């Protein structure tokens, strides 16, 4: 009975995993295909990686994507952390519940809506104050910050809620002014969470297609946009290579972020034990 159930669960797991990962492995597999026709195996080769990096277009898109991702992650981490601090620490202010709910809205909002509304915002702004005069790096970055920061805020909020105020009080008791306390005690303890938030924002930005295509302009092609536009003209082996590289980058980001969050969890448990509770 027990055996049967576990066999069933095991095959369900295998099926689910296959469903998730076979397409990705297939793509990686074909990126090493010598043949120009994607589904026809012509022997192992790294030829398409070479082709890929000879294309200036690819380099430009990569550079743009990385710049956006870094700036986005940095700002999203700062703003998200501040928002979380305001929500958890500065007592009850008017509209706190509303703010708390609203900050997580971008997490569930359909990306099409986010993209569309931001596009409308930028166009309206351009009409009124003449900025942003063109859509590209700036608009994509701002758009990415809006949803990345929500992720950061949620991560940091969770950490803060579990932390308690006692260490901050101890620091104040020893003569530290509130601003000092923030830098000496609160932020160092939030550092792993902030780093995880940064990495998550970085990867979210790196693989966003929908929002970016809404708010990007003619000269600004991010990597996902480039891939999508090329594939629409037919499967191409060099795009497989490009996508493989992205999978690798995203996987590294997510794994490191996950590891940091795990460590943070462990540290919290340890602090709870230390408090003797």
């Amino acid at each position: 009975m027990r055996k049967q159930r576990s066999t069933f669960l095991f095959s369900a797991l295998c099926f689910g995993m296959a469903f998730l990962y076979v397409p990705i492995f297939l793509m990686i597999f074909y990126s090493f295909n010598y043949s120009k026709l994607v589904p026809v195996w012509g022997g192992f080769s790294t030829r398409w990686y070479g082709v890929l990096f000879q294309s200036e277009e690819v380099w430009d898109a990569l550079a743009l994507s990385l710049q956006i991702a870094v700036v986005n992650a940095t700002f999203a981490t700062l703003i998200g952390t501040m928002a979380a601090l305001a929500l958890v620490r500065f007592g009850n202010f008017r509209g706190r519940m509303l703010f708390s709910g609203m900050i997580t809205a971008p997490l569930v909002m359909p990306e099409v809506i986010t993209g569309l509304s931001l596009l409308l915002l930028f166009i309206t702004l351009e009409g009124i104050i003449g900025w942003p005069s063109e859509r590209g790096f700036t608009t994509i970055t701002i758009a990415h910050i809006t949803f990345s920061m929500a992720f950061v805020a949620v991560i940091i909020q969770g950490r803060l809620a579990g932390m308690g105020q006692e260490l901050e009080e101890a620091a104040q008791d020893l003569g530290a002014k509130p601003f000092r306390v923030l830098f000496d005690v609160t932020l160092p303890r939030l550092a792993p969470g902030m780093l995880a938030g940064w990495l998550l924002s970085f990867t979210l930005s790196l693989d966003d297609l929908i929002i970016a295509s809404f708010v990007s302009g003619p000269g600004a092609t991010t990597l996902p946009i480039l891939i999508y536009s090329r594939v629409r003209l037919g499967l191409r082996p060099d795009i497989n290579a490009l996508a493989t590289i992205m999978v690798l980058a995203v996987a590294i980001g997510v794994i490191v972020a996950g590891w940091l969050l795990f460590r943070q969890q462990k540290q919290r448990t340890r602090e709870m034990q230390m408090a003797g509770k």
Partner: protein
Amino acid sequence: MSQVNDAAAGHYGDRPWLAPGAVPFIHIQGVSKRFGDFVAVDNVDLEIYKGELFALLGGSGCGKTTLLRMLAGFEEPSSGNIFIDGADMRSVPPYERPVNMMFQSYALFPHMRVEQNVAYGLKRDGVPPAEVRRRVEEMLAMVELSDFARRKPHQLSGGQRQRVALARALVKRPKVLLLDEPLAALDKRLREQTQFELMNIQDKLGVTFIVVTHDQEEAMTLSTRIAVMDAGRFVQIGTPTEIYEYPQTRFTASFIGTINMFEGTVVRDGGGLALDCADLPMRLALPEHFDGGEGQQITLAVRPEKIRMSKTQDAGGGAVVSLPGKVRDLAYMGNLSIYRVEVGKAVVQITAPNQRRLDQREITWDDEVHVGWDTASALALTE
């Protein structure tokens, strides 16, 4: 002002509040704290003098931590005033108060080494680095943690952490040190050792301590005075001896140590007054200090160690109470034994030193005995 205090403290040792003209160092005036409808601290008045080691004693949730947090500045009193060294503490933030607190859970900074933890408060005060280093070393030596200076808090044992917390609070030489159950996490031996350390520190540095505890033994050994708290109010304030020997209420009497209580009505008996207790076979003579009248409902309280027990009838006399009873239960505690003797319908608890070995003792289970005490050892409690 503080010079007067110092002189007074010198003269009157650990009883500075008796000195003529003594000015309280901490003055708590009609302080209340409400959380919503709940009153955690209820209109409390208290004066604490320089150099005291003042213990706040009371059951869980009676408002001890809340009172300390108001002194440290983490909570504003809902009403009333707090003065420290003559200065009104209203709206003085925690980082500007001449008070340091040792937290119930130590609150060590987990990302800093032991030495950084201890140095933190000095650095905030702008003490020059060389002096910071010297004072931190000195303080770590005092709490015997010099070898652990470079460790992080999670690499220490519970007792070591507690000493780091103590060092961190003491190194600033605050005028007032608030300790919230400082020794709760320590084993008995380490606790006793630290209690003596605390008293030494207090002698050396002349800091005024306020110690929260719900361990009554700790309060008895440590403090110059004890305030017994119940439901946000002070029930009694006094020296350990006063609190133990002359509790004013049933609550204090039963909260500190063990005590036998006999409830009954005051009746006229022969020439004087006596207590008529329904559970006891005879009336009890009342102590001289009793100034109530006939018909009053009171409780007569006697500490277990003040009761004698013998197989023969006590010599008796006017100043002694003597009752016949039967030993029902007996617990061997090593240095002393606890007897539970049935007297009438009541059970009287008696502690007696084990002057002989266990197998040679005179009185054992089911022995018929007489228990008695000097009437002056008993207390007549009216509330």
